[in-house]
């Protein structure tokens, strides 16, 4: 578990620099300051991108990882983008043992997002607060990129 204050500090000082180094991340939004949104390309799924959000879950006292998938297509010279909900997420993500559900209603606009269930976070990440988000990201971001650990090199 991680306190809200430690999370916010590590979000800005640990996670954001990691995400900036992630080669697949091409857009980063840090607004509001307690939430980071990363836009990530999908090399094996051209014309799609992921919008990944990391914020604090005060219920679990853990980082909360949510995301949605966008599709880009063109009609009559107009480039459209729309959220898409593939039937089999395992073709899109490295699901491994993670529980991913389409059950997160975003508080700002009531839109539905995928959430990565965080009930095993404490076991997976350990209890030490130093470098907590670093360890957390090294585990959870493999869902989107098996080679995420390259950001640590």
């Amino acid at each position, binding site marked *: 578990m991680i306190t809200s204050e430690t999370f916010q500090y590590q979000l800005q000082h640990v996670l954001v620099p990691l*995400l900036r180094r992630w080669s697949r991340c091409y857009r980063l939004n840090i607004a509001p300051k307690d939430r980071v949104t990363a836009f990530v390309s999908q090399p094996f799924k051209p014309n799609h991108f992921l919008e990944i959000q990391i914020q604090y879950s005060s219920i679990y006292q853990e980082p909360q990882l949510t995301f949605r998938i966008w599709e880009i297509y063109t009609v009559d010279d107009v480039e459209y983008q729309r*959220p898409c909900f593939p039937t089999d997420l395992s073709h899109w993500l490295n699901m491994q043992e993670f529980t991913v559900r389409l059950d997160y209603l975003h508080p700002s606009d009531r839109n539905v997002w995928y959430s990565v269930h965080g009930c095993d976070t404490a076991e997976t990440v350990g209890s030490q607060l130093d470098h907590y988000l670093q360890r957390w990201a090294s585990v959870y971001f493999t869902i989107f990129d098996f080679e995420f650990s390259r950001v640590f090199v």
Partner: protein
Amino acid sequence: MVGDHMKFTIPCQSFLDTSFFQELARLKLEVLKLDSSRKELTSRIDIKHIPKGSSCAHLFLSNESFGDEPQSGTGLPVKGSLYNYNTIEDFKKVDKASLLNQRAQEAWKESQDDPNNCVRFFVISFADLKSYKFFHWVCVPCFQLESLNLKVTASGTLTDFDKYDSWFDTYPECWSCLEDSDGGLRNFSKDEVTDCATLIVRDTSTIKMVPSALVKNFVSLFKLFVPKLDSIRLILVRSDASSSFWMEVKLCTDREISASALKVSGWERNSQNKLTPRATDLSTLLDPLQVADQSLDLNLKLMKWRIAPELDLDVIKNTSVLLLGAGTLGCYVGRALLAWGVREITFVDNGRVSYSNPVRQPLFVFDSCGKPKAATAAESLRKIFPLVKTRGVDLQVPMIGHPVMNETKEQRDFETLHELVRSHDVIFLLMDSRETRWLPTVLGCAENKIVINAALGFDSYVVMRHGAYSEQEENRHGCYFCQDVVAPSDSLADRTLDQMCTVTRPGVALMAASQSVELLVSLLQHQDRNTNEVSTKTILGDLPHQVRGFLSEFKTLQLRSPAFKQCSACSSSVVEAFRAHGWDFVAAALNNYKYVEDLSGLTNVQAKAEDALKDIFEDWDEELDEDLLV
């Protein structure tokens, strides 16, 4: 690179968050309506946190971007504007070059007072609220004096990055500054520029040694302030020392500088590097219930755009309605209320759907047969619009003149009905006998509720709103029973099938149902809601007391009948007796309708009528005898 024409990259990439479009949709429906004039936006461009995979900084727009208050978050604040067009055709036919030129000229002029205005953006958009597609095109004007050519004569990596970075940390909202000949840093302004030849700009590009096109704006401004200057040292500050750099730039002019002649660019290219608009399709994202919710509101809110801007939709939406009767009238009234946006509808009926019902009663289908009418009607309504708060109550409305057989049950039904009347704003009387309407009429008066009554004949109907109850009958509109000189009694005993069923031309029920709902909606638009005013109007037009329709002549009449002092249902003697004695009063009326006639004074009225009639007959007999004698 040295001696080359200076190259630039795109200023930034935009991303319009879904919350931006949802706020745009809300504003369009509720505030802007047909207003397509320019609206203010704000955003931030964060050059400190550009990821490795991006060639430039980003301009994020969210629901917080509307208005002129800087939105929260990191980065430099940027002012912008929105042009939201009413049709896709208007959006397409915008003269993009002219609009860009206007906005660039505006930024250029305003930047002469404050160079931070060199960085502006604007968005053109069209919100297709029916399909939830939002067309948009973002533009960040980049401009350069037409006569000015920029050539790089030298460049290199920045060695004293911290000096500039810390100045910008002190002035986090400044895009640029100047360095004087002593190496001091100062704000970029017309007054400060005279003895400076070094311009420092925060660069939104991440491409090695290639600044963003926004730098042209600042260099042009510098040249305007110091026309004689023919070279400049440019320092481009990025997120770290390794990517920041300097350039010596020759400012070549082929003719005299004209302050208003600018070369402009800035329309954003799409992901395939084409100059075309983009669209965000949110139809797949929204919760279907939310789409249904907003779509229902959409049709209603469109009325407010041109036809009835003052229409109060909230009062309709927040009105709870009790429908007594879930037959032909009840079903049609339920649907019409739903279409007007009423969100709480309760059905009361004690019947079951029969095989003859579905063809005339639109909330039932063949499979409904045998099921309780009230609950089935509510379930159908929920299938049509899941967000409606609706339920069905299986209840027999106690009827005057129908003696109490099972007091426990009938008292419980009475109490349930009373509570239902109390807890709703409007009561519709849609039953198929007169005596069923009596108790709800009394309850409506006692609880000061709006009561709308609809009744059918074979090819005629009456729709009326009962007068708002007060003890003073003089100025009150009448109720359904005000024209009767007898209290209602058991009209169902010893009736044949055709007398017990409502035998009407099928269209009559639709007409009565729709008129009764429209009458309610008009009434809700009146400032006093349940008014007794005569010949009054609302923003929807006339507000009649009652409408009678005659299908045989395809004619409707507006009528008004005043409250009758001896009415069996709404007279103060009846209503106050109910208020004083509750169930005991009701039980007495059920057991013997004459009790109500005595109480209201109808017995006296009848006696006087008898006497008057007797006098007439006696006079008649006398005249007849005299005639015979002749």
